[in-house]
């Protein structure tokens, strides 16, 4: 996948696996802890709906995009750079 300038979020596709959250925490803090992740997930455990949000401090490393297996995260096409 080509790297872009902005991360696209599609919450309808999110399966709630938290691989983005755990990857972000591991790449940026060296440990697994959702509190240390810059990308956050809001989970409703009863309706199983999930909302992702990238908070302040994102270095655009792309770990979350690489981790997502559900196309809930990707790079914005129009900003794609080589």
């Amino acid at each position: 996948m080509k790297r872009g300038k902005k991360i696209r979020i599609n919450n309808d596709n999110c399966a709630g696996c938290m691989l983005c959250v755990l990857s972000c925490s591991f790449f940026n803090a060296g440990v697994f802890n959702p509190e240390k992740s810059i990308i956050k997930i809001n989970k409703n455990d009863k309706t199983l709906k999930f909302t992702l949000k990238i908070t302040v401090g994102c270095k655009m490393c792309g770990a979350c995009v690489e981790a997502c297996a559900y196309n809930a995260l990707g790079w914005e096409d129009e900003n794609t750079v080589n």
Partner: protein
Amino acid sequence: MRILLIDLENKDFSYIEDEALRPLYFGGIGLNTYLLFKYTDTKIDPMDRENNIFISSGALAGTIIPSASRSEMTCLSPTGYLGTTNSGGSLGLGIRLCNIDALWIKGRAKHPLYLKIDEKGVLFRDATNIWGKDVFETVDTLKKKEGKDAEVISIGMAGEKGVRYASVQNGYYHSFGRTGTGAVMGSKFLKAVCFKGNGEITVKDKKGFLEISRAIRERIMSSDSLGYTRRYGSMVVSDVYNQMGILPGYNFTKGSIEKWEETRGRRFFEKNFKERDFACVSCPIGCLHWSRVKEGDYAGLETHGLEVTYVLEFGAKLGISDISKILICVELCNRLGMDVISTASVIAYLIELFEKDMVKESDIGFKPMFSDFESISRLIFLIGNKEGIGRILSEGIGSMKKYFTGSEDFACEIKGLEIPVRDPRGRFDTWILGYIINTRGGDHLKIRTPVDALLDFKIDYEYEPLFISEKEMTLLDIPQKVKDKIFDNPPTKIHIPHMAKYGEELLVLFNAFGFCIRPPVLRTIGPSMLSKAFNAMYGYDLNEDVLLEHAERIVNMQHIFNLKRGLTAKAYTFPERFYKEYIEYRGGKRPPLDRMKVKKALIEYFKLRGWDSKAKPKKETLHRLGIDKII
């Protein structure tokens, strides 16, 4: 390893730190087996205050290792033998964020309690106001009080009242389903446990961990089975079971059911109910589904499902044809906190008792009937609340059959645990031999072949056919010396007793490390990948041979625990129905199992395990595995 020891009676807690246990028992069922074996008195009643509950996360849970999020709960089961049960969701992460590997819950509270656990310790909270509430109400209340991100495991009325197959629910929809751990939790006046830690999960070799994580993911995502596993989840086999005539229809009397695909098939489900997919933590497969009922009496109902177990138990074993009504039965079980397999099995057994005039309408208060949602849902409610006939049904088939002389032949349980999902007469293979050798009783989730395929139904008691693609064959992670024993050369068939031994040990490792057993994982990951991930995370240098030897020890410890509880080789058998009766299916009739051939396969398995013909481990086996020192 860090084990949080909780004393309910004295409202006290402490931590046990013992790193020597980690490379031997890993986590999950491995660690739980050691703790049960070492610290649980085998002479007690399962409901005694001295029974312990152990909850361990898988060793790799809470990380980015794909599909490794699961946890195990273990105790002396109300079946009388090993009680152990697995669950996914986000609980494994929740446990690890409390900076612990496991919980050991002992004693009995003086009044209903729930526990709030974080990385600093345990708070013992009064649960009087939620005692008597169903699981959904309990989770709602505790999430409101302790925070919506708290991971909550809880029991419903069935656990409180001691239904012997009560589950412990993990959140709203995931379950520690089998072997009645909910009843043991209820006997301790423990309503729920909330995990809300903010600890850190650390890794020794970060670069190596990342590499193995990517390698595991690549293998899982390359599996031929990935696409259909995400699309249909476990429902993928629904149609196949009917076509092959292995449904457990009407208490194992019909292997195929008319219009099955049109009413309970995978495509019918997908078109009419499935809304979207979701996943357990760290899983890239996403085999779980969210469903919505669009029309009929229950239009508007939205819930988790459908899992094939639900449709095989309520749709086939009990004959309910309407998926929306199957979903209601499952939701009732989830709210009351009861294992869906045992619940459906007990009701099927009652209906057959009624049909054979061994139970009267006046004993029940109404007519119980197959395919009849009204009577079946009423029975679920009565069991969960232990009211009326529900009091007897709550004992489970293993106990009930003693009251109903002459019913033993169709009392479908093994070692006190009700038999699930698949009729054994369709094909004798690793799965079916697994029903009788499983250390927790009649069950399909502890012994599996990584090359399972239901494409040939020629019955052979020694070998099952091998049907996987060349690509999948190259992805198989089975040590060569094990392959040499299991397969012929070139591989065309599977030696059932050898595969049963290996498949049992493989699933101990999967469980101990936190892995799920869906086909994309089971077919591509094995001891070599597992050892690399474990070594990178914890800084050990274990190889695949060592892992398998440890798994062999763990299986033996579970078995010895059962022997100490009075289990004998006689229990390793199917109910007489499967040896005496033909089974009807859409292709005609299949003959009953051949008793002598089943026994031959069983004795071969005992031999491979290093046990004698009475299932007693030989001295040299105990010595080789070092169990004689633990005893």
